[in-house]
């Protein structure tokens, strides 16, 4: 039982981090209609900035700067590359973000080199006991922070002018424009929000008991893709549910690996993708994704 509760808690913590990333995917997708592959490098950027500054500014200061820098970086990508393109094929925008990701990742990896950087988070290796299970404080913090941020996010989405603009625009861009919604500003804010969430996710991805930030940290963003997709790419709630499913699936597949020997071992890495494919076969636009309206 301890094992199960440990695994479930860790799965939820993992899911919380994925949720922060997946929400970023969804917000950007709603605003700009693109699956942002540059998210991996934005995450790395946030982590890198925090790692560089935490000695000087302390963790909180570094976190703040990291969040702001990453948000600004995401906003800059929107302004420089995405906004100007206007209407192009979906692939083209997607591949463009891959190009941006390659550029940014190359530079960050060159700077990080072989280093494993600590982000100076205050939790260290300390643990707490929950339901008889030992769980790292950082993991609990991940769940708490994610719950707070995601609640804030949903409230903003529901009640602020920006949230209403986002939802209106993703329903019908032109009608939203006719209401006087400043689309450029809404999109810019969306990218910035996504960037900020990615920077926070970077903290929990690298906090103990994980090994600190290194050049491959950004890859984790790839696992949030299935989360965003299986929930439905234009549904924030779907992203949240998807992220939790992926986190739990992964943790359970790893924790009960010995019972899954038939799959060849090490199946936890691909479990998210298998779950995603199964769900997409059942619902081609994810759990809560809206059906595409086809127009001739």
């Amino acid at each position, binding site marked *: 039982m*301890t*094992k199960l509760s*440990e*695994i479930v808690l*860790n*799965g939820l913590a*993992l899911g919380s981090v994925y949720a922060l990333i997946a929400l970023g995917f969804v917000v950007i997708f709603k605003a700009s209609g693109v699956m942002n592959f540059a998210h991996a490098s934005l995450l790395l950027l946030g982590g890198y900035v925090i790692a560089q500054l935490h000695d000087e500014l302390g963790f909180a200061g570094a976190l703040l700067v990291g969040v702001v820098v990453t948000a600004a970086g995401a906003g800059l990508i929107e302004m420089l590359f995405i906004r100007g393109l206007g209407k192009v094929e979906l692939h083209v925008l997607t591949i463009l973000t891959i190009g941006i990701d390659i550029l940014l990742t190359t530079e960050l990896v060159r700077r990080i*080199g*072989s*280093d*494993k950087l*600590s982000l100076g988070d205050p939790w260290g*290796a*300390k*643990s707490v006991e929950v339901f008889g299970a*030992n*769980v*790292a404080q950082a*993991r609990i913090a991940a769940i708490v922070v994610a719950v707070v941020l995601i609640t804030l996010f949903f409230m903003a989405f529901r009640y602020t002018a920006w949230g209403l603009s986002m939802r209106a625009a993703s329903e019908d861009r032109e009608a939203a424009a006719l209401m006087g919604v400043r689309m450029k500003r809404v999109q810019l804010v969306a990218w910035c929000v996504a960037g900020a969430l990615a920077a926070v996710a970077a903290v929990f*991805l690298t906090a*103990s*008991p*994980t*090994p*600190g930030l*290194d*050049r*491959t*940290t950004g*890859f*984790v963003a790839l696992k949030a893709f299935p989360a965003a997709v299986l929930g439905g790419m234009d549904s924030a709630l779907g992203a949240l549910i998807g992220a939790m499913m992926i986190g739990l699936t*992964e*943790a*359970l*597949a*790893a*924790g*009960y*690996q*010995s019972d899954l020997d038939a799959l060849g*071992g*090490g199946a*936890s*890495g691909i479990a998210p993708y298998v779950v995603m494919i199964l769900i997409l076969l059942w619902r081609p636009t994810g759990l809560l994704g809206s059906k595409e309206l086809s127009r001739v």
Partner: protein
Amino acid sequence: MKPRKGTRAAAAVIAILALSATACSTKEKDKDPAPNGSGNAGQLKTGAGVSDTEIKVGELSDLSGPFAPLGKSVTNAEALYYEQLNAAGGVCNRQVKVEVKDHGYDPQKAGTAYTELSGKVVGISQLVGSAIVTQLKDQIEKDGILTLPQAWPSTLLGKKVIQVTATTYDVEIINGISYLAKNVGLVSGDKVGHIFSDDEFGANSNAGAKYAAQQAGFSLVEQKIKPTDADMTAAISAMKSAGVKAIIVSASPRQVGPIMGGTETAGFKVPVLAHSVGFHPQLLALVGAPMEARLYVASPVPSINTDMPLLTKLVADYKAKYPDQPIDQGVLSGYTTAAMFGEALKAACKAGDLTPAGVMAAHRAQTSLDLGYGAKLDFSSPDKPPTYQTYILRVDKTVPSGLKTVEQAFESPGARTYTLPKPS
């Protein structure tokens, strides 16, 4: 106007072709630079890569991919060795010149980079990445140039041209487990965990762990992880609930770090045994305390900070030449590998045959090479590692490499009774 344009283009193409025909007609010479160049200096036979003044040695490293940290240390250390060798007069009155190619752990780039070395070097004194070695080994064998890989799975054994430079992973883990059994008090019937990465390194190590566990009567709890995983909590939970008395880790520092941290967090403070390739001094800043308390490192070489003449001199020289670079075990590994190659060159010079085949023959004729760090190396059998010995290192925050030697080279009884995987 269209046809005109076309004809002009065609004419231009033909002109370029004609130009290139004159420019590139040297291809045949390029391929085989000095076939059987007979003795200029006495009766010395020379071949590819060797001129009257120069001996060219190739290195295929990873300087931009996932193994860049290792690649960089090894490349620097090899450069240091050859610099010292040249300062001492070189080999056969020739200066050794190193040509380094970066493959970034990309098999395609490695393939083309190799073609730039083959036929132009007398041998390859560094080849990083077991996947890359595997990819190239058929070709290397065909070209017959001595190659020293920076990877130690026993699956690389069995080819005369490829010299695994030290104890293989499986033998290393057999030695390590025997040390652990003796020193942390494991008894028959205990459960021992093995977390290993889902790649050749992990699989090879797992073969050794299985054997050692069976010999000692331990039951082995296995947990496979992806080489890219960073979250070890689930694996640790599995180990903890199985109640293992010790954990063996065959993975990279990316995973050894979280395993140390995670077990500490989970209050699951069992001894951990890792390979030297799974340790990196930077982990000390992140999980120093648990590593100091519980980590054992099985290594084919002693800690570079051991008090030995060779090693103290190496550390000093390296510090002088690369003041900004970290001193890790890769430095020692690179330096000793280069030294093995240097010894082969010297032996070949003595035998009067500096062709690639001659270098290989001279290398394989050495049965008891002592490079000055303890282990005696026997290169005579392609099917066996040059040594079956292992050092045990533990964490010591006071030295640059972060490791100190706690057990000098030893060979456990199981090391030789274990059947190495039958090479292909």
